[in-house]
């Protein structure tokens, strides 16, 4: 049928018209490109008037394709597709030309800009002639949701969804939910006790009818796609039967083996071989640490088993794989602490009284190993002076270029706690003091009044090499006070290193399982850093909390709730529309060579043995087109990006490059040009 193409060139005020002669481009297109029924330019195409103009042309002139030469499709493709839809033209018969981002804004010279613009428009016109109507695909949404990570962000998302009446599977790697927040004593800037605000949420999640807790468990495998994910979770053997255990704690009490607790107590305290991380753990069911347990070590003991009133100890328990079906996934896997050994000049690990921030959290915590007493490693001496060093592993090109966001406020909190609990002097060594949220700056001012000392400068080293008798037996902090412009040596009893927040070691691996990518550093990549920081590039997979980037508690809670809201919306609607940009296999052309099957990272291509052909499961296809390019038989076609369309685009974009004479590219055989 005869093609009637409409071409619409946008001025975007002066954004495009400034460097491109848009009138000329429109005039030229109308005169030059074959099949163009109408070519116009307009101040702002995306304005309602601009859209109306396009819609009218479609109706009145019966356009079969529309080319909008304006800004990036990532900005306004939806807008103009909607306009076409209003005028009953299939939205996939609309093609955008990225004149603004890819041409006018990057070209210095108007002539060159206009020439480039013409080529881009020509390409789009040739392409749109090859485009065909497509219908978005509708997928039902399974109302159950998987939340990975039981820290504050994951808890928030879980409770929001559960309270909305939807079922949630909450998977947590540790024996208890709670995450880092459970280790803290106070929370800035209000100083309310972390446990007091967290534990109610934990127990609520533990008891909620709509929540299935899977603690001491890890995500094994994810398949399927938005609306219908299939998930495998590994429940690690606890050696305690959850169905019988009452959490009475006798086993823990009677267990003869004590070990240093490098997990929850950050190495400061001890725990038994059978343990719950902390008294308020949810669930209160203990786990046996096989590395420590005497039975696993020497085949003796079993004290816990003998003394358990409900015979819940099960030494024969094994890991079990649980299969779940969910519609959406929230990753809230949090962060890990920077390894302070990597900065030997600060002496962590060498100098006993150098602590990490997490160690210090436990030190301050009333429920911690010292019952909240701030004392040196000897366990009794109260420090007379404490130094808090900021940005340890953060804002440091050698380790993490980024700012860890929470350390300044945490450092101030530490300062307050020291001043409150001891008579010590407290020094903060900072690069910049970053206190930018509600009540934060006020907290900083409060600490200034409380008498915390602030030295602006990056600490060169922490050493025990005394130079003066006064320094003997102390830790000396060598620093240039950049405000005074002087080298200083400040002798203290205790040093706290504000270690950086880093991505979990296995963040990339987990991301791959869920089909989402990470930043160079390892933080999960959101769909849009500003306008969509909750969703990811993979539909149905959301991120919340510090796994997306360093965050404090309020920000994590916000993101957790936001993810939940997005998911509730999808569940309430019941279905999602997914772009029809998927691959399909023309079975009569397929010879079953099995090249394509290895191409798909989403296993969307299945092989039908009896028929001897491959098939694309369109609901699982993400439309990358790699198999289309790989198929040696040319049997696979990618909707909206098929060969005919791209080849037409190439010919169009080079309209001014083909030399005269018989320079046309050959077709062999001549007829073999169908998509």
């Amino acid at each position, binding site marked *: 049928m005869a093609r009637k193409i409409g071409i619409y060139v946008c001025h975007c005020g002066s954004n495009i018209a400034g460097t491109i002669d848009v009138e000329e481009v429109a005039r030229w297109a109308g005169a030059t490109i074959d099949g163009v029924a109408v070519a116009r330019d307009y101040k702002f195409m995306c304005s309602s008037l601009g859209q109306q103009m396009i819609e009218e042309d479609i109706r009145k002139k019966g356009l079969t394709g529309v080319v909008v030469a304006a800004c990036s499709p990532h900005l306004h493709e939806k807008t103009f597709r909607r306009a076409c839809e209003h005028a009953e033209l299939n939205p996939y018969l609309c093609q955008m030309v990225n004149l603004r981002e890819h041409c006018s804004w990057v070209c210095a010279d108007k002539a060159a800009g206009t020439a480039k613009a013409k080529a881009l428009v020509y390409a789009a016109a040739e392409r749109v002639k090859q485009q065909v109507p497509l219908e978005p695909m509708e997928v039902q949404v399974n109302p159950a949701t998987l939340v990975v990570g039981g820290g504050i962000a994951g808890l928030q998302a879980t409770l929001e969804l559960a309270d909305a009446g939807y079922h949630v599977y909450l998977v947590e790697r540790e024996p208890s939910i709670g995450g880092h927040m459970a280790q803290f004593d106070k929370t800035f800037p209000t100083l309310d006790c972390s446990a007091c605000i967290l534990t109610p949420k934990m127990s609520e999640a533990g008891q909620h009818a709509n929540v299935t807790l899977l603690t001491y468990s890890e995500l094994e495998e994810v398949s399927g796609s938005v609306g219908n994910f299939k998930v495998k979770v590994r429940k690690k053997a606890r050696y305690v039967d959850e169905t019988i255990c009452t959490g009475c704690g006798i086993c823990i009490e009677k267990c003869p083996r004590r070990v240093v607790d490098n997990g929850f107590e950050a190495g400061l305290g001890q725990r038994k071989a059978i343990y719950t991380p902390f008294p308020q753990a949810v669930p209160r069911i203990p786990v046996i640490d096989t590395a420590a347990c005497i039975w696993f070590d020497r085949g003796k003991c079993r004290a816990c088993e003998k003394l358990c009133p409900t015979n819940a100890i099960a030494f024969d328990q094994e890991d079990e794989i649980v299969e779940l079906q969910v519609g959406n996934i929230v990753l809230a896997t949090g962060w890990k602490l920077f390894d302070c050994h990597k*900065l*030997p*000049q600060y*002496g962590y690990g*060498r100098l006993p009284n150098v602590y990490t921030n997490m160690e210090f959290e436990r030190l301050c915590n009333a429920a911690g190993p010292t019952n909240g007493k701030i004392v040196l490693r000897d366990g009794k001496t109260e420090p007379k002076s404490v130094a808090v060093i900021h940005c340890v592993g953060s804002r440091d090109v050698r380790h993490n270029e980024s700012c860890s966001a929470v350390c300044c406020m945490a450092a101030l909190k530490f300062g307050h706690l020291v001043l409150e609990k001891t008579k010590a002097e407290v020094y903060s060594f900072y690069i910049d003091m970053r206190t930018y949220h509600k009540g934060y700056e006020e907290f900083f001012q409060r600490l200034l009044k409380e008498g915390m000392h602030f030295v602006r400068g990056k600490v060169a*080293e922490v*050493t*025990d*090499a005394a*130079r003066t008798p006064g320094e003997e037996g102390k830790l000396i902090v060598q620093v240039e006070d950049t405000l005074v412009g002087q080298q200083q040596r400040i002798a203290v009893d205790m040093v706290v290193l504000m270690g950086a927040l880093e991505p979990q070691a296995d963040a990339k691996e987990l991301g791959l399982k869920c089909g989402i990518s990470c930043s160079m550093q390892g933080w999960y990549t959101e769909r849009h850093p500003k306008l969509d920081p909750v969703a990811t590039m993979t539909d149905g997979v959301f991120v919340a909390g510090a796994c997306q980037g360093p965050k404090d508690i309020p920000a994590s809670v916000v993101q957790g709730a936001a993810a939940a809201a997005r998911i509730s919306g999808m569940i309430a609607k019941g279905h999602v529309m997914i772009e029809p940009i998927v691959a399909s296999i023309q079975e009569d052309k397929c010879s079953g060579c099995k090249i394509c099957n290895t191409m798909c990272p989403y296993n969307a291509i299945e092989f039908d043995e009896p028929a001897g052909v491959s098939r694309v499961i369109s609901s699982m296809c993400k439309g990358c087109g790699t198999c289309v390019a790989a198929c040696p038989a040319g049997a696979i076609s990618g909707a909206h990006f098929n060969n005919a369309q791209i080849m037409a685009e190439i010919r169009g974009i080079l309209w001014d490059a083909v030399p005269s004479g018989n320079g046309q590219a050959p077709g062999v055989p001549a007829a073999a040009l169908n998509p």
Partner: protein
Amino acid sequence: MKYAYYPGCSLEVNSAAYDISVRAVAQLLSIELQEIDDWNCCGATEYFSQDELTACAVIARNLALVDDKVEQLIAPCAACFLNLKKTDKLMSDSAEMNGRVNTCLAAGGLSYRPGRVLVRHLLDVIHGDIGEAAVRDKVVRPLTGLRVAPYYGCQWVRPMSDVDNPEYPMKMDDLFTWLGAEVVDYPVKAHCCGGHMTQISEPQAFELIRRLLQSAVDARADMILCMCPMCQLNLDAYQGRVNGHFGAEFKLPIIFFTQLLGIAFGIAPEQLGFGKEIVAALPVIKAWLGRAAAAVA
């Protein structure tokens, strides 16, 4: 493997012990050293502060003189090591500098392509290329019970920190752990020895030296091991003056790490240049050998 060898001026006279022990140890580890023919002074630290081009040209001459068939160069002196490395880098980073230096070299009928020669320090070669296993099975006299304080100084890792941790170097620590010595962990092992400060302002220099000696003594070290002639000179030759200045009683042998390495490998002390140091090291070593023998008996 064959390396070009750049001894540098110090190793000719006051640090001859370093040169002797380097050659002895290298031979034993079958590190073939081919001394650069007609090498010249690296200009030490001063030249660069005077005139970068001159400094580079003077140093580049040595690189240009390296045999085409040899790809790596060993400079035992930390200052020479740094200067050679720095020159190569300045030339590869800036086409302009490269051009100007090569113009200078051309005057002498020479030329040098940046990156042609890889500048190494012996410590790095032994630690990396030879490696733990090979070093361990060369040991005939384990240094068990000997407390050593490795001293790195500045130029080994600063400003170019690609060979070791710039804040807290460890390679000499590793090496002597392999040899069975008790390596003391003292906090100032990468602090400055004062360099030429001794010529400018003795009180400052002496304070810097004292800190190093004090810290090593506090750590109950039997001796300090150096990898730089300047460091060795300052700590050894000025120890008396420092004692006088502070009324201290330091009597800490300061030797080159290659000398003790040689002992562990069973090379006779006289073949390692012992006796040239001012604070005698042999008595300490003999005493230790005595202790060791006693321990065995």
